[in-house]
């Protein structure tokens, strides 16, 4: 890329390799490349955070308060790109879904469009049905425990589902670590994790609910 300021080759960093002027973001850069990291699931979040903080300092608006309009704009666009990349990669779930989206897989979409009017459609999704049965039973158990005001039962259900969620995410990590990742299997794990996460969100005590349950 040619630097807008010195009109020489800027390299592909945030700042021009020659004159140090901030460069607009590369449109083609994926979230990993923003941090100069390889595209893989297994990453050191502490290292990622260090990179994020260092880059944030470089892009801090105070540094561009009196800068050229093009530099201000470029730094702002870089910040937006950096923040989105950080939010996506720092969370394992978002990172996994992002990696799949780079492969053209949107988690939840293919299974969501599956129709049950074909007689065999459920038979071909045995895992899915078993998962739905499990999730429905868990949700019913949660609703019943809440109706009884049984907070110990709610807590044990939450702990159980949290363990299930952790198990799925451990399988996701293992799946990506394989020499030939099975993307369909990883997607199924992420879908299961979503159902468990939805349960956990629902189980979080809301304001006033403690009283309402009594």
């Amino acid at each position, binding site marked *: 890329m040619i630097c807008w300021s010195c009109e020489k080759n800027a390299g592909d960093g945030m700042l021009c390799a020659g004159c140090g002027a901030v460069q607009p973001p590369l449109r083609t850069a994926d979230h990993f490349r923003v941090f100069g990291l390889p595209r893989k699931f297994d990453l050191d979040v502490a290292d990622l955070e260090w990179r994020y903080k260092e880059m944030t300092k470089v892009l801090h608006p105070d540094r561009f308060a009196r800068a050229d309009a093009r530099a201000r704009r470029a730094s702002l666009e870089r910040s937006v790109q950096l923040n989105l990349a950080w939010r996506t990669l720092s969370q394992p779930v978002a990172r996994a879904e992002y990696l799949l989206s780079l492969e053209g897989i949107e988690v*939840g979409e293919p299974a969501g469009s599956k129709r*049950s009017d074909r*007689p065999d459609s459920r038979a071909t999704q045995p895992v899915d049905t078993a998962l739905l049965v499990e999730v*429905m039973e868990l949700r019913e158990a949660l609703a019943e425990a809440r109706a009884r005001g049984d907070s110990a039962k709610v807590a044990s259900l939450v702990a159980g589902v949290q363990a299930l969620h952790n198990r799925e995410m451990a399988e996701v990590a293992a799946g990506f670590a394989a020499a030939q990742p099975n993307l369909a299997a990883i997607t199924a794990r992420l879908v299961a994790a979503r159902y468990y996460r939805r349960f956990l969100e629902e189980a979080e005590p809301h304001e006033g609910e403690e009283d309402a349950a009594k």
Partner: protein
Amino acid sequence: MAYSGKVIDHYENPRNVGSLDKEAPNVGTGLVGAPACGDVMKLQIQVSDAGVIEDAKFKTFGCGSAIASSSLATEWIKGMTLEQAMSVRNTQIVQELNLPPVKIHCSVLAEDAIKSAIADYRRKQRGSQTQPSLGES
């Protein structure tokens, strides 16, 4: 999220919440989920010997629109034949409840739940064709 009056009405006073005996030969159970949001919906039908849906129940764990969609679906299909119930379309639910585009998948879920319940009932009937139906009407 601004819900329409009809959605709020079904959400606050859901019709036909509950369960039917899923082991009964004249009961069909449909269980569907939305992987995109993690909602789950169970819809059950009890079918008379004449092939008419005489009772319908649902349990939905999800947003207000998903609850309203399944509540409306059970209300509609009661008294319908299986063929009539098969022809219920999610677009009708969208129209009746005035669902915004982001909530259309809730109506799809309800349509899928009806079809899945009917498929389950028919599978059971095929499996026990030689036995007399236990359905009361």
